[in-house]
């Protein structure tokens, strides 16, 4: 399509049709301020009115974020009237926002704080008008402080449109506009899957993870406890964000060094149990294929996805692999296999997980996750919480030496590393399944078709005469599309489906450093595949520690001990809150 010209603050610019005034202004070096707008999730409802501009011939302001540029348009972005409106609007928002910046979880990472600073606002002339609301801490993973909510509705868009969960909504309740869990019940009583995407998009501190760093410091200070830690694949390429390193930098060795300095008795890698997951889940798939089991099999690593299918598609649960997630496998092994080998009382072993994920907090708290005889995982910390601990401890993170994980659960393959990116579990499974079934070495181990940010991906891989058909989705909205097709019988030819709850997979998880948007996701995916390429082992079945674990303890995939420790069951929850 042909471009056209418009004028912004006296500068002429040619743009493509469909370009917003906001994007057109950016092309001439003008950053029109925004607050509610969030391009990554398609949120352009024009709620905050911060991006208002004057357009000649128009009686009223236009919002730059959602007004398309037009041929011949003459736009003014910096007039006295526009500046006044923007400043007054920020002042109005601040009047109803508790200014508790120093004690707020988002201090220094707050878009409202930034905007007030950008405008040089020095006073708020207006009194508070809203009633005080109780903080909703009903959820084990996510806490809401409605007092800080600025009604931008990003969380509602991501929950409803991207994730298809609709646990929260925007409405007028008793004359007050609020974002609230549906039917005004506590968050924990909704379909909320704890994905934390709302946390990532909140511009302020109105939704945040339950902070459990104090429990970890206390365990580390307790001489009776044998405290071990595991780190999820996606954290290896994300935690540097909190320390100003380029997004996607592989900080694995520095994270290990930091954790060791905290005093953890052993530092393990969840990548190790990701490889173990491939052995168990791959074997389960082959068993289903050979013995007429329920197909396609669907992955089970993502706890947000698990709670989603339990609420929204419980009839399809037989498709889900019985494998626990790598986090829960490691927890169960730490209090059995490891404790035994180390000669420590499993009652004294305290397992901490570093996860890119808020839903992992819920997963660890599920009643059935105690197959070791104890709570398999004691505390789950998000990437953000670990970042805060490292800062509190005063470690110069960027300059820490690179250290290695501890035996016997410290080696992870490249296949495990890519669990953190959408398509990675599938690719890891294909690398192993091909070789185990055919007995041949796979020459081309990079399965490009299942990589990248396309919402639903598919591939067909010939394995020993069988065309293995696979599907990959990320973001629960896409999972919902696949589940509807599965129920309609349209996926009968497929064998294996990978579903990740969060957009981009775990590298875009709800526990990751803020900001986590499309750009950060792309860069962390880049870092993930770079680390995969650099690792000594790139296939799960080649992991020497996994081989040893089977030899010394588990015997074989899907064996008796595996079933006891590494597999689980699900709950058909159905829709909540129940509507009578």
């Amino acid at each position, binding site marked *: 399509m042909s471009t056209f010209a418009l004028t912004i603050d006296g500068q002429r610019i040619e743009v493509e049709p469909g370009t917003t005034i906001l994007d057109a202004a950016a092309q001439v070096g003008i950053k029109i301020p925004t607050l509610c707008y969030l391009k990554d999730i398609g949120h352009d409802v024009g709620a905050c009115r911060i991006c208002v501009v004057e357009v000649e011939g128009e009686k*009223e302001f236009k919002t730059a974020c959602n007004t398309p540029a037009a041929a011949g348009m003459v736009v003014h972005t910096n007039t006295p009237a526009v500046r006044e409106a923007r400043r*007054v609007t920020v002042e*109005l928002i601040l009047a109803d926002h508790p200014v508790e910046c120093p004690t707020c979880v988002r201090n220094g990472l707050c878009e409202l704080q930034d905007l007030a600073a950008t405008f040089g606002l020095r006073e708020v002339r*207006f009194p508070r*008008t809203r009633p005080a609301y109780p903080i909703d801490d009903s959820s084990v993973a996510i806490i809401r402080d409605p007092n800080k909510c600025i*009604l931008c509705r990003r969380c509602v868009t991501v929950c409803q449109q991207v994730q298809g969960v609709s646990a929260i909504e925007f409405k007028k309740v008793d004359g007050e506009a609020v974002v609230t869990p549906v039917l005004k019940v506590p968050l924990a009583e909704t379909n909320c899957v704890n994905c934390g995407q709302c946390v990532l998009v909140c511009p302020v501190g109105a939704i945040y993870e339950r902070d459990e760093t104090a429990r970890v410091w206390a365990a580390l200070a307790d001489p009776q406890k044998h405290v071990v830690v595991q780190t999820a694949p996606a954290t290896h390429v994300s935690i540097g964000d909190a320390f100003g390193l380029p997004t996607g930098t592989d900080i694995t060795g520095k994270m290990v060094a930091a954790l060791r300095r905290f005093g953890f008795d052993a530092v393990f890698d969840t990548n190790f149990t990701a490889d173990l997951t491939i052995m168990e889940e791959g074997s389960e798939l082959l068993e289903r294929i050979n013995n007429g089991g329920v197909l396609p099999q669907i992955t089970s690593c993502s706890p947000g996805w698990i709670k989603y299918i339990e609420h929204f598609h419980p009839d399809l649960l037989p498709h889900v692999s019985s494998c626990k997630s790598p986090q829960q496998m490691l927890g169960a092994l730490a209090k059995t296999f490891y404790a035994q080998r180390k000669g420590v009382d499993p009652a004294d072993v305290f397992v901490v997980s570093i996860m890119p994920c808020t839903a992992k907090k819920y997963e660890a708290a599920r009643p059935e996750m105690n197959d070791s005889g104890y709570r398999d995982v004691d505390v789950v910390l998000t990437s953000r919480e670990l970042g805060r601990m490292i800062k509190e401890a005063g470690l110069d993170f960027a300059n820490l030496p690179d250290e290695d994980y501890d035996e016997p659960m410290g080696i992870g393959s490249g296949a495990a590393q890519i669990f953190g990116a959408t398509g990675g579990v599938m690719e890891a499974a294909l690398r192993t399944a091909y070789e185990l079934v055919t007995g041949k070495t796979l020459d081309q181990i990079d399965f490009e078709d299942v990589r990248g940010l396309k919402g639903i991906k598919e591939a067909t891989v010939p394995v020993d005469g069988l065309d293995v058909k696979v599907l990959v989705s990320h973001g629960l909205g896409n999972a919902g599309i696949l589940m509807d097709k599965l129920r309609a019988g349209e996926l009968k030819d497929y064998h294996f489906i990978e579903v990740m709850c969060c957009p981009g997979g775990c590298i875009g998880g709800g526990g990751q450093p803020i900001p986590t948007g499309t750009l950060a996701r792309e860069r962390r995916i880049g870092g993930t595949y770079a680390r995969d390429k650099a690792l000594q082992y790139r296939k799960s079945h080649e992991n020497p520690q996994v081989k040893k674990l089977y030899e010394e303890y588990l015997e074989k995939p899907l064996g008796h001990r595996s079933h006891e420790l590494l597999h689980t069951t699900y709950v058909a929850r159905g829709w909540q809150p129940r509507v009578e």
Partner: protein
Amino acid sequence: MHSGDADPKVVSELARSLLALVRGESCGECLPCWHGIRQISAVLDKVDNGSPVSAEELAAVGELARTVGQGAKCGVGRIGGRLVLELLSRYSSVFQARV
């Protein structure tokens, strides 16, 4: 609205009731209207019930009314803001600071 002599009580009562109407319609979907109309209402209520009102408060009402009138997402706030500006300019004697 006419601009002749008017009973101050009638004018302030009119302003208050018009704003109450706008406030009831304001939905919260856009922030200047949601917050702004409330803040304006609070000052106009003071004018109506004879409470002290400062010149700064009345000046702020002007800023708020311009912001809402020009920037609100829909006609509710836009009309509300303009009504306030109209009232302030036509009945400046009613909307005056007093201790």
